[in-house]
């Protein structure tokens, strides 16, 4: 089975070809980073325009680099949401057009499901598993029982963890995008210099909160007379370790619940853009070792937004006969838990 995947829900225009044996035949990403950098964040209309300008060329490259033709494909998958709707529409219409011309099944993939199933593209992981999904827009713990089968254990009450990284970067005057900048600055910093809070730690659920952590960073910086390079490094390192410890604590609770529901041995998967952070990966590796869980983190290139994960989710859904109509309406908001109802109905 060979599936073309298209991703355009944020600031990456991407297309990839993946087969049913977990081979990534091509994986093309055009980053719009430079177009958004002057604005310090993604501008939706700029993103939508850029997606339209590039998407057909990116798809053509993905097909050519994979060494296939459109008629070799078994399905066309594209992100159908959640995300910036202007971009999602461009990708989805591109997918619908190719599906219609070559009479192929269309698979509208939930972007979060793309992240959620990416571990199964990167490694041999069977259902069910525990998923920590961490990105700029999402922060959730879920039990993944199968494609479209998600039980939400908890999520953020305010900011996503990636958002906290971005805001901290802004406060510290670090360049956009914030996640990699904070990680880089933290390398030379002392993580014990500032005692930032660990919101929600010890609470008997699997929810997150990051707004208090961001506020603490803001207050600490305001109290410093000047912000030296070492202050920035120490603040970045102290923030990063606080965020990592919160994720570990919340994941610990989720492991406890997962054990009750699915037995003592399990797999902890981390996915999403923040999963590319080295400190967070190390902390979760240690947690998995302590609890006897297997730990799987897709390589960083499959954690940040990409189309290989969308193509793979397409492979998984197509295998179950879960396809979509040409009238599919992209969804700016589309929680993973709603996939279950869609299958059930």
């Amino acid at each position, binding site marked *: 089975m060979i599936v073309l995947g298209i991703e355009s829900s944020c600031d990456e225009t991407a297309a990839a070809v993946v087969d049913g044996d977990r081979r990534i035949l091509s994986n093309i990403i055009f980053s719009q980073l430079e177009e958004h950098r*002057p*604005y*310090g964040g993604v*501008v939706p*209309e*700029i993103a*939508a*325009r850029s997606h*339209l*300008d590039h*998407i*057909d060329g990116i*798809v*053509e490259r993905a097909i050519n680099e994979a060494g296939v033709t*459109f008629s070799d494909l078994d399905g066309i998958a594209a992100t159908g949401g959640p995300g910036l*709707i*202007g971009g999602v*529409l*461009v990708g*989805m*219409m*591109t*997918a*619908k*057009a*190719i599906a*219609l*011309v*070559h009479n192929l099944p269309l698979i509208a993939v939930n972007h979060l499901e793309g992240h959620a199933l990416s571990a199964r593209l990167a490694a041999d992981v069977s259902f069910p598993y525990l998923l920590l999904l961490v990105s700029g827009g999402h922060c959730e713990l879920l039990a993944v029982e199968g494609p479209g089968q998600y039980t939400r254990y908890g999520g953020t009450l305010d900011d996503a963890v990636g958002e906290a990284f971005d805001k901290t970067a802004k406060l510290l005057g670090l360049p956009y995008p914030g996640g990699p900048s904070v990680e880089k600055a933290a390398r030379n910093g002392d993580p014990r210099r500032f005692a930032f809070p660990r919101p929600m730690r010890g609470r008997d659920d699997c929810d997150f909160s990051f707004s208090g952590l961001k506020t603490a960073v803001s207050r600490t910086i305001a109290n410093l007379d000047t912000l030296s390079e070492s202050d920035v490094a120490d603040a970045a390192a102290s923030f990063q370790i606080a965020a990592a410890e919160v994720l570990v604590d919340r994941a610990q609770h989720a492991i406890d619940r997962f054990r009750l529901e699915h037995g003592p041995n399990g797999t902890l998967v981390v996915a999403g853009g923040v999963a590319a952070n080295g400190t967070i990966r190390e902390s979760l590796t240690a947690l998995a070792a302590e609890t006897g869980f297997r730990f799987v983190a897709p390589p960083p290139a499959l954690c940040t937004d990409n189309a290989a994960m969308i193509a793979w989710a397409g492979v998984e859904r197509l295998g179950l006969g879960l396809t979509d*109509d*040409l*009238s*599919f*309406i*992209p969804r700016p908001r589309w929680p993973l838990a709603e996939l279950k109802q869609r299958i059930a109905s």
Partner: protein
Amino acid sequence: MIKTTILALDSATDACSVALWRDGSLAAHRFEARRHGQAEILMPMVRDVMQESAQEFKTLDGIATTVGPGGFTGLRIGLASARAMALAAGVPIVGLTTLEVVAAAQPERSGPLLVAIDSRRSDVYVQLFSPEREPASLPMAIMPGLVESILPGGPIVVAGNAAETVLQALQQTDVSLSNGPALPDAAVLARIVASRIAPFQTDLEPPAPLYLRPPDAKLPIEKQA
């Protein structure tokens, strides 16, 4: 090019339409006036038109699409679809403006024509056309109150879905509302393209969108000025 086979589509303004032109006439056609939801109905319309005319994509001579101006979302829906179909079918593609398509649809040919398309903001998208319906100005975004300043003087007919807005803002008396269609239609688009001597030039870049307005984006305060 009487024998040209063209698939044409438009979703850039307040309508969604698809047409299949073959052997000098319309083989199949769908038109629906609607301001939103083109993403839902456009591809099923294309499927229906292709099925009804028993036309295969790979034997098309080319695909024609509008490129705007119009609603940003709608024009991207049409243009992304058309460009992807051209890529997938391996056929050439050509783009025309919504203003050209509306101009060509007006029956009145005695004098100059102004086409005005709703921008969904306070301004309007306009273009002047000669009595022969050749472009007499560039397409532009302009406040209705300033339209008068670009008019040639003398009697003029106004068409398009912002024609009433423009008419209300004009002081001069020798202006009239066209009795032709106010919205672009893929059937007209197909007919224009088919009437050209060389409708599809394959060595060109795919058609680009015509927004007539920069994206809404504010630079951070320290980067302004």
